[in-house]
């Protein structure tokens, strides 16, 4: 369980995170939403120890994350960052196998191989596991990286905009996979997404940030109101209900 307490992070004089405190639920998908520069990715980076906050602390399972050894916390939290570019040439399976590093320190045993097989299956990559990463399309590459994160086999997974640059088909397929994954394994996923409809459609909980401040933490269906979304994103929008689900229309309203 992640607990954020009074975390502040500033670049120069601009506060990207301003005294943020919240607790993330476990066993669910939680979406971090907000407009560009609201501090979503920064918050995730602080939780993943990529960035150091200026003040405040992050607790994981009751213990400050700085008190964990890196090798220890890598068995409990897996993080996928934004924009994965790798300048070495490796195959999908070799990339996914890196996910086992925290457990096996690079010496794979039979159990590791099985977990890699399963991760490849989850992301439907089994038939192309020997393709090189640099030959893949954007969607396939993203799936390969998510497979690596799943192979890490941690209870908590942090994903920073995994849907970046993906079309409708691929982003919905990835979200569907994550949804099924959480339903079956009861793991915790915290994900940064841009599209409010995507967040509402697939996650239980939504955390909204604006100008570095926490403005809302609520179950997904509660956020889908014109006044709430209007305030969080600074847009005019209309909520329509179709098939028992609320959708937000914000283009050309």
């Amino acid at each position, binding site marked *: 369980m992640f607990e954020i307490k009074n975390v502040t992070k500033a670049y120069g004089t601009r506060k990207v995170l301003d005294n943020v405190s919240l607790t993330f639920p476990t066993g669910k998908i939680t979406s971090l939403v907000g407009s560009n520069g609201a501090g979503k990715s920064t918050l995730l980076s602080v939780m*993943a*120890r*990529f960035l150091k906050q200026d003040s405040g602390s992050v607790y994981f399972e009751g213990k400050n994350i700085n008190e964990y*050894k*890196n*090798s*220890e*916390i*890598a*068995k409990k939290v*897996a*993080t*996928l*960052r934004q924009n*994965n*570019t*790798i*300048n*070495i*040439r*490796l195959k999908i399976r*070799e990339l996914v196998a*890196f*996910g086992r*590093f*925290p457990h096996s*320190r*690079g*010496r794979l045993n039979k159990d590791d191989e099985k977990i890699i097989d399963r991760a490849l299956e989850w992301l*439907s990559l089994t*038939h*192309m596991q020997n393709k090189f990463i640099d030959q893949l399309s954007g969607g396939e590459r993203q799936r390969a990286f998510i497979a690596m994160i799943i192979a*890490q086999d941690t209870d908590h997974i942090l994903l920073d905009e995994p849907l970046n640059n993906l079309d409708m088909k691929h982003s919905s*397929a990835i979200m*569907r*996979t994550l949804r099924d994954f959480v339903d079956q394994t009861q793991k915790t996923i915290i994900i940064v997404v841009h599209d409010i409809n995507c967040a509402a459609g697939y996650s239980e909980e939504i955390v909204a940030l604006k100008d570095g401040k926490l403005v809302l933490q609520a179950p997904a269906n509660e956020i889908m109101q014109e006044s709430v979304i209007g305030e969080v994103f600074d847009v005019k929008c209309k909520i329509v209900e179709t098939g028992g689900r609320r959708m937000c229309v914000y283009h050309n309203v």
Partner: protein
Amino acid sequence: MHKNEVNLANDETSPLDTSPNALEPSNAGLVEDNYKDEPPWFKRLFTRFKAFTESLQKRPKTLLILLSVFLLILLVAYLFYGLLADVFDYRATGDEFYLNILRFSLENRYPTIFAIIIVAVCVGYSTVIFQTVTGARILTPGVLGFENVYMFIQTALVFLMASQFVGVVYVLEGNANYAFSVVLMVIFSLLVFLPLLTRGSKGVFILLLVGIILSTLFASLTSYMMLLIDPNDFDIIQGRMFASFTNPNLSVMIGATVAAVLAILFTPSTRVLDVLSLGRENAIGLGINHKIVVLRILVIVSILVAVSTVLVGPIMFLGLLAANLAYQLIKNFRHKYTIPAAILVAAIFVALGQFLIYHIVTMQMQLPVIINLVGGVYFIFLLLRERKKSA
């Protein structure tokens, strides 16, 4: 998702697969027509060679063994070139004279073999791990001008001390001077490397900029001091400046070897290096203490660079040449293959060049000139290729 799978599975076979039987005969005819008259012998040789190298890339171990055998042959050839006649003459006549020639020549030549091996290990090893940390393949410690720092230290030592305290310079000979220089170089490199520690691969540009500016600064300070210095004192510097493979700095050989071996023993395992090549964030996510590991690697790199510079003087482009040729040969990202490959390529390159200089053109040229000429051309080629890639 499922549809997608089916499509992709089909993509792997040829798109012409719709009616394979109908196409096959005409295809076969075409091929036969083309090759009715025999292809020229060099073309056949080339295709066979290509198939051979491609099959080797799937077996990196075999490739490494082949490279080692080639290196061994080169080194033996270097040692015994032109001496076989003496061996036969000695056996035929039993005259001690021939034996003495043999002994004298070998004594002259074996330090070179030693130097080639140590320098190749230092340069190959340090370049590969440095490039893994920086994530940039056209960057090497040599290009950043580490050697200039070494020359600066040597010149400054003589400049500051020779005029007043002649004794100090002689105390600072050999291993003491060497240890002193290594410590200073490590401190310098850590200062330059600092941005890498905190910013990961984003720090590379700052590193490059700071490195180039500082190395130019040190180079001009060095030449300024050389101008002011007493000609007798300048002799001492010159001795250190023109250390070479033919005439390596033997007094520090043992210290150098020990330092290099210790440094290499202290590096993280090749499996950790593999993870580092995924970039800073991925490495942290996979449980690596990035800051500590990178700091360790940078200290090791600076020790290794210092060792090779002290032994044979600056060879700017050797690391770049060795590492990149090794990547191209091995086509495998694992450090357990790329590091030995880079070491072997570096050794082969130096051994070839040294053979050429010592035996063929008989010291009419200097080895760094050849290596920097070839390496420089290769560097430009790499730059052009990178630009093409990003365009």
